[in-house]
C-alpha cells in the first residue's frame, strides 16, 4: 500500500482483469466450446482443449459488509484457487477447476447463509437500487422489499423450474437506476403527489428557468411568493416524475401516505426469440408497507405463479402474454384493469389496439 508521501496517482483505470483470471480461464480464454448445467447454481464450461471450469453461483444481498466479503475471499482460497467474480445481477461466482470442490463449497456457502442457484430457468437475484439506505429521491426502500420478495421466491432461486428465465428488478423512483424498464417483473417506487415547493429555500438553491424547463409536462410556472421569485406547480399537470426534484432540492415529492409501488411485467433485454421489450404496467399502485411489504410480495408471487403454471417452455413473461393476450393476463392474475393502464404520454396513440385481432 502507498505511503502518505507518495506522488498522487490518478487516471490509472481499474486493475487489468488478466491478473484476476483463474489459470484455467486464462489458458482457455476465447476457446470455450460449450457448457452444461450441473445442478442449479453450478455450471460447467468445457474448452476446446478439453479443460473444464466449474462455476458456483451464490445469491447475495448486494449490500455486503467487508466482513462478508472477506468470508467470500476465504471461500475462494479454500475451494476455488483464490478466484471469484460477481455477475451482472450482483451474484457472486466462484471459479473451480476441481469438480470435487463443488459440494463442499456449496455446503460452506449454505452454512454462511448464501444460497446457490440463480442459473438457467431459475429466478436470479433482483437487480435493485439504493432506496432509503442511500438515496434522497426514493419513494420506497429497495433492499427491504428485495429481501422480503426473495425470501418467498427462495425456492425459485434454488430450483430451475420455470418455463424460462425470469428477471425481477426494483427501482425506488422513476429515475429507474438499473434495467427496471426491461424486466420480466419490475417493482417501481412511485410518488403520487406533486412536489411541495419550499419557497424559503428555492430562490437560493435553484435556478428558476432550469427548473421550469425540467418539467416534461410544463406543470411548473414562475410565481412570486413573499416577494421572492419562486415557482408554483399546476397540480393537474403533474405526473410525479420527480425530474424537478432532481434539478432542485426545494421541490421534494416525498409523501408517506401517497408514495408506494407499482408493478410492471413482460419486459426483456435479450434478443433471444423476441426483440428486447419494455415492461408494461400491471399494477398501478400498492402502498408502502414496511418492513415486509406483504402486498408487494403477494403481487409478485401471484404473477410468478400464474406465469409458471401457464407459460410454455422457453416463453419469457412477455412472450407468454403475447401469446395469450393482455386481457387474459389480467383475467388469470385477477389484477384489475384501470384507466392508468391506458397510456397517455406522448406516443400513447401507438399503443391503442389498431386491429380486430381480439380473443373473444
Amino acid at each position, binding site marked *: 500500500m502507498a505511503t502518505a508521501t507518495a506522488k498522487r496517482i490518478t487516471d490509472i483505470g481499474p486493475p487489468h482483469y488478466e491478473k484476476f483470471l483463474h489459470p484455467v480461464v486464462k489458458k482457455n480464454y476465447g476457446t470455450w466450446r460449450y457448457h452444461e448445467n450441473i445442478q442449479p447454481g453450478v455450471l460447467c464450461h468445457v474448452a476446446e482443449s478439453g479443460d473444464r471450469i466449474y462455476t458456483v453461483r451464490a445469491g447475495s444481498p448486494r449490500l455486503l459488509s467487508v466482513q462478508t466479503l472477506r468470508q467470500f475471499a476465504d471461500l475462494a482460497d479454500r475451494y476455488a484457487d483464490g478466484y471469484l467474480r*460477481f455477475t451482472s445481477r450482483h451474484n457472486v461466482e466462484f471459479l473451480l477447476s476441481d469438480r470435487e470442490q463443488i459440494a463442499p463449497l456449496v455446503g460452506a456457502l449454505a452454512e454462511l447463509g448464501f444460497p446457490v442457484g440463480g442459473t438457467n430457468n431459475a429466478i436470479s437475484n433482483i437487480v435493485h437500487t439504493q432506496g432509503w439506505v442511500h438515496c434522497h429521491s426514493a419513494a420506497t*426502500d429497495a433492499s427491504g422489499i428485495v429481501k422480503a420478495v*426473495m425470501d418467498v421466491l427462495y425456492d425459485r432461486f434454488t430450483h430451475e423450474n420455470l418455463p424460462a428465465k425470469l428477471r425481477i428488478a426494483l427501482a425506488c423512483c422513476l429515475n429507474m437506476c438499473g434495467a427496471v424498464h426491461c424486466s420480466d417483473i419490475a417493482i417501481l417506487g412511485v410518488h403520487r403527489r406533486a412536489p411541495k415547493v419550499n419557497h424559503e429555500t428555492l430562490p437560493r438553491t435553484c435556478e428558476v428557468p432550469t427548473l421550469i424547463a425540467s418539467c416534461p409536462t410544463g406543470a411548473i410556472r414562475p410565481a412570486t411568493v413573499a416577494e421572492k421569485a419562486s415557482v408554483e406547480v399546476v397540480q393537474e399537470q403533474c405526473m410525479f416524475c420527480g425530474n424537478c426534484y432532481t434539478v432542485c432540492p426545494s421541490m421534494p415529492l416525498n409523501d408517506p401516505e401517497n408514495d408506494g409501488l407499482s408493478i410492471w411485467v413482460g419486459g426483456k433485454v435479450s434478443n433471444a426469440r423476441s426483440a428486447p421489450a419494455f415492461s408494461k404496467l400491471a399494477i398501478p399502485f400498492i402502498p408502502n408497507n414496511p418492513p415486509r411489504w406483504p402486498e408487494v410480495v403477494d403481487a409478485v408471487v401471484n404473477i410468478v405463479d400464474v406465469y409458471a403454471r401457464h407459460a410454455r417452455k422457453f416463453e419469457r413473461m412477455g412472450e407468454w402474454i403475447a401469446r395469450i393476450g393482455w386481457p387474459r393476463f389480467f383475467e388469470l392474475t385477477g389484477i384489475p384493469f384501470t384507466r392508468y393502464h391506458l397510456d397517455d404520454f406522448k406516443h400513447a396513440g401507438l399503443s391503442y389496439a389498431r386491429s380486430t385481432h381480439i380473443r373473444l
Partner: protein
Amino acid sequence: MADDDTKTPLLDQLEEGPWPSFVTEIKRAGTKSPVCGDLLGQLEQSYAEKKGHWKHGGIVGVLGYGGGVIGRYSDLPEKYPNVAHFHTMRVNQPAGWFYTSDAIRTLCDIWEEHGSGLTNMHGSTGDIVFLGTRTDQLEPAFKKLTAAGFDLGGSGSSMRTPSCCVGQARCEWACYDTMALCDDLTRSYQDELHRPPFPYKFKIKCSGCPNDCVASIARADLSIIGTWKGEIQQDAGAIAEYAASGLDIQKDVCDRCPTRCMTYERGTLTIENRECVRCMHCINVMPKALGPGTERGATILIGAKAPIVQGALLSSVLVPFVPAEELAETIKELLKRVWEFWDEYGKNRERIGELIQRVGLANFLDAIGLDPVPEMVSAPRDNPFIFYQTDGDGH
C-alpha cells in the same frame, strides 16, 4: 443517542427468512463501524415513517476529479451524527468483475479504514460501490485505492464506468473479446470518466452476443453487442444426441425461431441462414450442437436510457456489423464524432438518444459521417411528411 434509537424492531424482521439479509450485513459492519448504528437508526425511522431521510446531495469529490463520489447528507444530522455525511465512492471494477481473494481483501481493508465498511458489489452501472463515508475520508481513501491499482468510476455529466459480460473468459458464445474492449475503452477515456465534459452522462456496455448479459441495449448510451456473419456452426452428431436425449427439436427449436428459418426433417436440421436474425435461441437451446458463425464481430447501437424525461429508450442500430478486429478503432473514431456532435447540439441533461430523436436520425448520421442503411430502422417511414432537400433531386 438514546438507547431506544438503537433498537430496530422493524428492520430486525428483515433478518428473518432464508435470503441473505442486508440488515445483517449492516449489523456485521456495525461491529467495527459506529456509522452503521446510525445508519440503522435512520433507516428504522424511515421504515416507521415511510419516508427517506437523505438530503439532496451536494458536490463533493477528490482532487482534480469531477465525479466518482455521490455526496449524501442526513436530514437528521443531530440525531444521527455518524451519518451526517454519508457519501458513496464509485470504484471502477475490473472488467468482467473478476477478482482474486487478495484484491477483495485489499478493497475491504481500505473501506474499513476510511468508510462504513459497507459496499455494493456492485452498483447498477457496474462500479464497486463504497457506501458511506465523510468528506474528509475521500482523499485518503482515494490515495489508498490508486496505490492498490484501483481508480474511481464516473458520475455527473461524465462518461460512466463501462461494463461487460464475462465474454471470452468463460462463455463459448462471445463473438468478440468483451473484457479487452471494455478495459481498452475505460483506459482510453480516463479523462472523460473523471472530468465531466458532456451535456449529461454517457454509458458504454459490451455484451459478447445477442443474449446481452449486461443489458446493454437497455441501459447504455453505446451498446456493443457481439454477433456474426454467415452460417451458424452445426455439429450433426451433437444434434442427434440432443434429439436422442428427448429434446423436441421441431417444437422447442424450429417453432420458436422468430423467422422460422429452420426445418428439422428426418434428423437433418437445415437453417436458411440468410433469414436468421441472430437471435441466439437455437444456439441457447443446443450449445453443444450449434454455435455462432465464424466471421465474428459486433453490432454497435446507440441511445439507451431510463425514462427521465422523454421516456425510456432502447439503443438503436448505428453500425450493423463491425468485424471483431476493427471494433476498438471503429468505436473510438465513432465516439469522437458522436461526442463532438453532442457537445455542439446537445441541451443540458439531454442524453445522446434523446438528441438523435430530436434532430432526426438522418441529420445525426450526416453529422457523424455515416450513410443511412435499412438495418438502422425496423421499417422505413410511413408518414409522407418528407423534408425534401432543395439542393438535391430527392431521388
